[in-house]
């Protein structure tokens, strides 16, 4: 099992959710985040710096998937979250050791 955490542009959330739902992934947690640090590609100092920001808001989605679904899920997120602009976000994948459904005690992928 894998845990996927993705940071995407807020206005892409609906698209990402719909695309994930289309491949059967409906359970996820969603939160707003304000990053700190700098958006990549930060080189040009523009005179309009009066209203420049280091980091625009992002939406953080987190979901757990079975090993078999990982590639598809990542692909779907990449496609639906892309605007082609700087700051489209990132996807982090990590190993998930165990999942347990509290009500039934099911474990592993059955619990996802």
């Amino acid at each position, binding site marked *: 099992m894998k845990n996927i955490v993705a940071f995407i*542009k807020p206005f892409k*959330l609906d698209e990402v959710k719909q695309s994930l739902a289309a491949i059967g992934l409906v359970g996820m947690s969603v939160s*707003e985040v304000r990053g700190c640090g700098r958006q990549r*590609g930060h080189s040009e100092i523009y005179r*309009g710096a009066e209203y420049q*920001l280091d980091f625009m808001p*992002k939406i953080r989605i987190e979901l757990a998937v079975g090993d078999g679904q990982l590639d598809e899920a990542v692909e779907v997120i990449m496609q639906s979250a892309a*605007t082609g*602009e700087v700051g489209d976000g990132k996807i982090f994948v990590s190993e998930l050791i165990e999942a347990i459904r509290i009500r039934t005690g099911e474990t592993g992928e059955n619990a996802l």
Partner: protein
Amino acid sequence: MKPAKTPSEASVVPTALELARRALTADAAKALDPLEQLGFADPVQALETLDRTGGPPQSAPLPVLALAELAATGRPDEGLRQLVRLAVAYGPQGLFSHLEADPILCQRLVQVVSHSTFLADILVRDFEFLLWLLVETPHLVEPLERSTLRQILRTDIGHVSEFEERLEVLRRVHRREFLRIGAAEILGTKPVAQIGKELADLADVVVEVALETCQHALWQEHGQPLDERARPARFLVVGLGKYGGQELNYSSDIDLIFVWDGEGETQPEGEGTPLENSEFFRRLGQRLVHVLTEATKEGFFYRVDMRLRPEGASGTLTHSLRASWRYYETRGELWERQMLIKARRVAGSRTLGEQYAAMLRPFIYPAHFHSAPHEEIRRIKERIEASIRERPRGENNIKLQAGGIRDIEFIVQCLQLLYGGIQPQARSHNTLAAIDRLAEVVSPKGAMKAALTAAEANALKNAYEFFRRVENLLQIASGRPDYAVPEDAQALRALALVMGYEDARAFSSALAGHRLRVRRLFAALFYGDTAAPRSPTWLLEVENGSAAAKADLVARGFVDGAAAHRRLQRLAGMGLLLSGGRAHFEALLPELLNSLAAAPDPDQGLLRFTQLVEAYGAPGALYSLLQEHTGFRTLIIAICGSSRFLADLLRRDPALLDSLVGQADWGLGSGPARGDLRAIARMQNKSLLRIGADDLMGLATEEETFLRLTELGEEVLQAVYGLAWGPLVRRWGKPRNRQGRDVRFAVLAGGKFGGREVDFGSDLDLFFVYEGDGKTRRGVPNSVFFTEFSQRLIALLAEEGLYSVDARLRPEGASAPMAISLVGYRRYLAQRAASWERMALSRARQVAGDAEFGARVLRAIERFVYNREVEAALVAQMQEMRQRMEPQGKRQTRINIKRGPGGIVDIEFVAQVLVLKWGYRDRSLRVGSTRHALQLFIEQGCLDRERGHFLLDAYEYLRAVEKGMRLASERASDALPTGRELEILSRALGAKDVAAFQDEVETYMQQTRRVFSALFAELTD
């Protein structure tokens, strides 16, 4: 003691007495007149009522004095009706002979029954109270202490043990004492504070006896509740509000809280069932409330309000001391602290009462505050104000209206919360006492001034006493919780008289004076001396459709306050996935409203802001960014508040916001997207936004903005050129001349694009020239190829809404083929071009295609434009053309700042005609830009300074107006808008008001036209 208020005996009484005598002795027909003069509204009815007193044969007639006194009350009709009713009930012993014999009794009785139907009812029912009240008890005038009252009651009730019977006696005593206090009120024999205290004492004694009675009954059923160490568990009744403050009135609810202490269970004697103590006390509380509120044939004691208890109406009726503590410690709100200031033990365990008070003290009066209590109290107050403003009958409400009783209580309680922590003497549950103490409060070292000055304290006390007396009189009159000063003239006069005023007007002005003083104090305390703007967060606390919110937003500059309120609530409630997101919005709100209010169009601004937040998503994070970053906030609000054009761009493609404020890459770059029309469109939008943003933020001058828009036009045009060229060449092959060499092509610009003065939403004036005839490799004639290419270029530019192209500058105008060969163009210029075209082409330049070839075309154009001096015929032609351009007919009614007389075109014509005139000899004076041309001519002395600078000034101004119009709306119109749109535009341009703005525009245009005409006249000379 003499009654505080007597009708002025010297002047009125003799006359009234005389009239009364006549009314009572004359026969029916002659009695009507004096009755009317005595103030009877319905003398016929009064006469009939008087006749009925003749009923019982032995009874004396109505004393003359009584009738005269009735007249003095201001309510003679009602008073007479009650008096006669009383006489009938009193029976043949003869009430009137009592009155005849005792003028003081007569006067008092008349006053009491005239003013209060409610007390008259009690007297009719228990007429034995009458002599007790007016003759026997000394306490109609003298203060009655609670201990004395308790003794009196104990004497009355001592021998009665049966439950219902005890209550019966209690009700009777309650009624009697109530009558006594009410009569004292009307007669004005006791100050307001004493009345309030006696009413509270009476309630205390009633609650005490009722509690004992209920407790006794429950003990018999379930035994006495004991705690775990077998000591009696304790119960406490706490009074709050006016009751707790010992300033009770006649008919509002009494607020109670029940507290108990000592876990355990009851010890029944004999067969009773034991109960958990919590259950026992719950039942006790229930029974007590029932006894106090139950309506029997004898009436009821009090309405009881238990909603101030922890968790309000949804909480259990009784709380243990420990549960109360837990509640206040963890969940107690500011309004609860304020409300608990008034908490007072009214019955039950004295020791528990002390413990309870000690427990509450640090909660009500903490030594330090975490957040500003002023602000929090203001929020509560604003909530209340908002709800009052929505009450249709709030007008005369002395309790709730601004400057009324509620305001005074708020002032006092707010100061108590502020000072009570460090100044224990400020902690009083009684309003008047608290005012006194707040005026005394000084810190030991004198570092802190008293909370109230002596004058402020006096103003508050006087107002409070005044309002409370009015309130009491209103309530004692009807027995209902009335707070409205009567509108009816007679009722108002009667109230004024019993309050001791000469007439209704004197009373009303006193009332207004008190209100005003309280209101001022209130404003000074809650809003600061400088009338600082109030925090608008209360708008989020009131429900949709609130009239107060609407009014507030209208006052802030929104036209549709209700819609603005809905939008604010939507913004506040938007799916907040960020914890604390709402708090971020609340923090942002004041600045948001202020900035929008200052924007040209607050309503649309808020709508666009709402749409933007919705489109972007992550509202919580967005609010917090907006709140923190001034520049970002200013920009977003400026865009929403002044530019529909820019806001729409953002709403349609929220990703642009990231590019705008982040560090996105600019231009098209060299990536794979280069060939994509949509990529070009996005690049254009990004640039438009950036240019517009810099313009709104004042980071670019007008000239720079137009120049950047011009460069953007070139960049887009060249990108689209590349997009159109490849496919057509692949299909038809490259165009060649007869020698087989590639044929070149140039796109030329005229008008504003040529003059590098493009505005937002401007058309591009273009025309197309190719090098020469021939065929492509696949045999397509060059004329066909380039015409098709030009048309495609125009179509592609239109497809994504990039630009619309105006191609009317081409030879032969609108009906001719789109592209022309250089040879054909030269021939045209030499033979058929009209001389006015010299002017139009003076701004031509090459913007796309082959640069070298473009230069060749331009040389041909230059030869045509500057081939001869500016002759009179040309000037005349230009003038005629200028006239044709002016809006005709109906459209003339609106000011057209571009083509109207004195509009931008006038200045452009002046610049161009001067370019033709002076450029003929001097190449360096051949300039396309209107502004540069004018500057240059001023420098060179070709145009006198005064007129030159005026024209520059006017050009700048009118272009700014034009830009404002373009940014504000979607349609590119040159006519000044009307109505609301004109107002918005004038605000966007910083004008004082619409009239001033219109005046300014017209003045500029009239003067421009004068200069234009003069200059052209000079040219023809």
